């Protein structure tokens, strides 16, 4: 029951075929929407689409499914689990009113939490399209999403990091060297997470054991994850491997996820398996999801939608499985989807806002590839903006250089920079550990010890050659 939309501007009449086209044309410029052929054809058309979208009632999104209900299990998830009671206070609003309401003094963190399950991904995407960057930051900062496993992620005033010790051949000492570097720079409270160079079950188990042993020996209040396919992780659990978090890349349409080789049942099965291990000490959020604008188009599974709307729908998948962490890998996909620093920055802020509004523990891989028009300064800017917005976590990698995946993300140093300028802190349990281990000398001022902490010095001395 899709309707068309029109807007009369002076002597010109703009027509939008349906809600999907209106959403796409209202989206701030990005190369992926041009590649998909859904982008506004002029700046004026985009501005008019935004004005038209602002008049659309939020209720429309409950009646007009952008991807047909019969064809897509994610549409069914969104519609079937919509909470009408939570929606009631905002049910009378248009998209434009919704922006005003979100920015209003009335929309406190408690109020925003109470309407969360009444907001669909499409509503979040729609309102984000008519919000400026400062609006996305201001509202996201009011949306508090807290999760826990061996520590607590997402408390206001805190910023965690995923320690990403990737190595092109999964060399155990090479990985351990990057883990050590990260820990000694105060990183790794969100997760220690490895992208394996060779993606199979036995390799994953080897890496899980490696991280499990390090976490146990040094009593680190954090969790590990091998970023392998969800079906591999299920097999790892069956084989008795020490699985903390289950990983999966997810998209916002059923067809995208089929191309990734899983569906919602697979995720449910994996979550149950991980919960059965009871490895969390302060909470039971056991899932780690990664997303990113452009994945649906890349899998030719976008149903004519713009890439940001597809992305927001992925957060409905995430929300269903109560993850510890959700990471939008914003600049990894390349310039055919997000061309330059400006587009990457905008997408990062949109994803963080939509995720938080929907109640997802959103972090961001602030990153770029060498064929994108972006550099370290763009990453500094986005990192700072996300820090201000209350982003749950970012990546930490030695010197910003991922030597396995060949892209640049935020470094261990970057995390300390943003913590220091914004006064944000690691997860509380992890911060205590940093102080106890004599890694952090002054947690309030983010000052590190200069000497190598004794337990780590011992491990270095034990190396062949015994050099200290």
């Amino acid at each position, binding site marked *: 029951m899709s309707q068309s939309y029109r807007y009369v501007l002076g002597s010109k009449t703009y027509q939008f075929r349906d809600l999907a086209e209106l959403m796409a044309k209202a989206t701030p410029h990005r190369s992926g929407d041009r590649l998909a052929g859904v982008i506004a054809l002029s700046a004026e058309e985009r501005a008019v689409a935004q004005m038209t979208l602002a008049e659309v009632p939020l209720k429309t999104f409950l009646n007009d499914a952008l991807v047909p209900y019969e064809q897509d299990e994610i549409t069914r998830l969104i519609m079937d689990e919509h909470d009408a009671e939570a929606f009631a206070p905002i049910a009378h609003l248009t998209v434009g009113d919704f922006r005003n309401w979100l920015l209003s003094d009335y929309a406190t963190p408690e109020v925003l939490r109470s309407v969360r399950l009444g907001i669909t991904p499409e509503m979040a995407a729609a309102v984000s399209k008519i919000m400026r960057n400062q609006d996305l930051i201001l509202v996201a900062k009011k949306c508090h999403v807290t999760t826990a496993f061996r520590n607590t992620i997402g408390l206001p005033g805190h910023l965690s990091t995923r320690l990403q010790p990737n190595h092109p051949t999964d060399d155990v000492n090479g990985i351990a060297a990057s883990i050590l570097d990260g820990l000694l720079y105060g990183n790794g409270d969100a997760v220690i997470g490895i992208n394996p160079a060779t993606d199979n079950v036995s390799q994953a188990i080897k890496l899980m054991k490696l991280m499990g042993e390090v976490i146990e020996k040094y009593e680190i209040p954090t969790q590990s994850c091998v970023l392998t396919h969800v079906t591999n992780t299920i097999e790892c659990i069956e084989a008795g491997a020490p699985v903390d978090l289950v990983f999966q890349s997810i998209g916002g349409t059923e067809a995208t996820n089929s191309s990734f080789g899983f569906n919602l049942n697979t995720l449910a099965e994996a979550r149950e398996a991980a919960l059965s291990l009871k490895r969390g000490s302060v909470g039971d959020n056991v899932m780690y999801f990664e997303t990113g604008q452009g994945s649906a188009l890349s899998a030719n599974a976008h149903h004519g939608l713009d890439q940001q709307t597809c992305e927001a729908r992925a957060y409905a998948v995430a929300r269903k499985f109560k993850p510890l962490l959700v990471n939008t890998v914003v600049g990894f996909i390349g310039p055919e989807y997000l061309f330059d620093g400006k587009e990457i920055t905008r997408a990062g802020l949109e994803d963080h806002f939509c995720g938080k509004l929907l109640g997802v523990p959103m972090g961001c891989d602030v990153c770029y590839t060498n064929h994108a028009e972006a550099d370290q300064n763009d990453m500094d800017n986005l990192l700072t903006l996300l820090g201000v917005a209350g982003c749950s976590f970012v990546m930490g990698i030695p*010197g910003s250089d991922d030597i396995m995946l060949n892209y640049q993300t935020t470094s261990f140093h970057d995390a300390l920079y943003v913590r220091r300028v914004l006064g944000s802190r690691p997860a509380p349990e992890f911060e205590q550990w940093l102080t106890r281990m004599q890694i952090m000398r002054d947690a309030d001022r983010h000052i590190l010890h200069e000497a190598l902490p004794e337990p780590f010095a011992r491990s270095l001395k034990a190396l062949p050659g015994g050099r200290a």
Partner: protein
Amino acid sequence: MSERKPESDTAAKPASSVEQHVQNGKVVENPWRRLREFTDARIGLGRAGISLPTSEMLAFQLSHAQARDAVHFPLDVEALCTELTGLNRLPSGPVLRLHSQAEDRVSYLQRPDLGRLLDDASREQLIGLPTASAAAKTDLAIVIVDGLSSLAVQQNAAAFLSPLLDLLQAEQEPWSLAPITVVEQGRVAVGDDIGELLNARAVLLLIGERPGLSSPDSLGLYLTWDARPGLNDAARNCISNVRPAGLAYSEAARRVLYLLREARRLKLSGVKLKDRTEDDVIEHGGGKNFLISE
């Protein structure tokens, strides 16, 4: 205004503390930097406060600059052709210069679909060749594509082809070769068009890979049996990271020969053609890392 005291007097206490801070403002080195023997990751960089020391910051900028140049510097096709012509055992006839439908780099980066298609002039050039209309198929077409790193192609393409052509020449069952083609602003799938137009059984495509910060010169090799438009990457076999600091030319040539033989025997390429020369599980001595070895 109060009377000034001699400088040495006033400065005594505060100056020593400032002096101390000046001294302590130097870079903090990381003693674990020697763990770089285990990894190329940028560990143990040290710090100025909590920030990157100047030398490390500038070293990173240099690496990024090199990777950027690899993407944006156009391939010097003239120089490449001269180098190719100097190779032994080259197929007869000139090297053919082709272009994709992506006009320039900006269009290439934003429209991967255009980089997968030959432009009209290039198609006509191939259609006019005698091989294209010959009754018998040629065994192999070698296609060289700039891809995302002209540097990779410029530095490694001819150097890799030299040992490969020697190996092919030494084969008992001979390999007939189509004219070598060089494509500007091309993606991997452009080889499908070329393979079909050249009437070749197999296409071996050499392409500049997306440059990494520490590997701006990485050459990728793609083998496609029975190449024709509409194939996806599941129909290809890939060998990556061919460069002096990565996979050596002779080893890459050996692997390609293995894949070519198997492709000809099985009449296919891609996921059903397994490269048995690689191990599935990467094993390292011992298995315990230094952090838990005590």
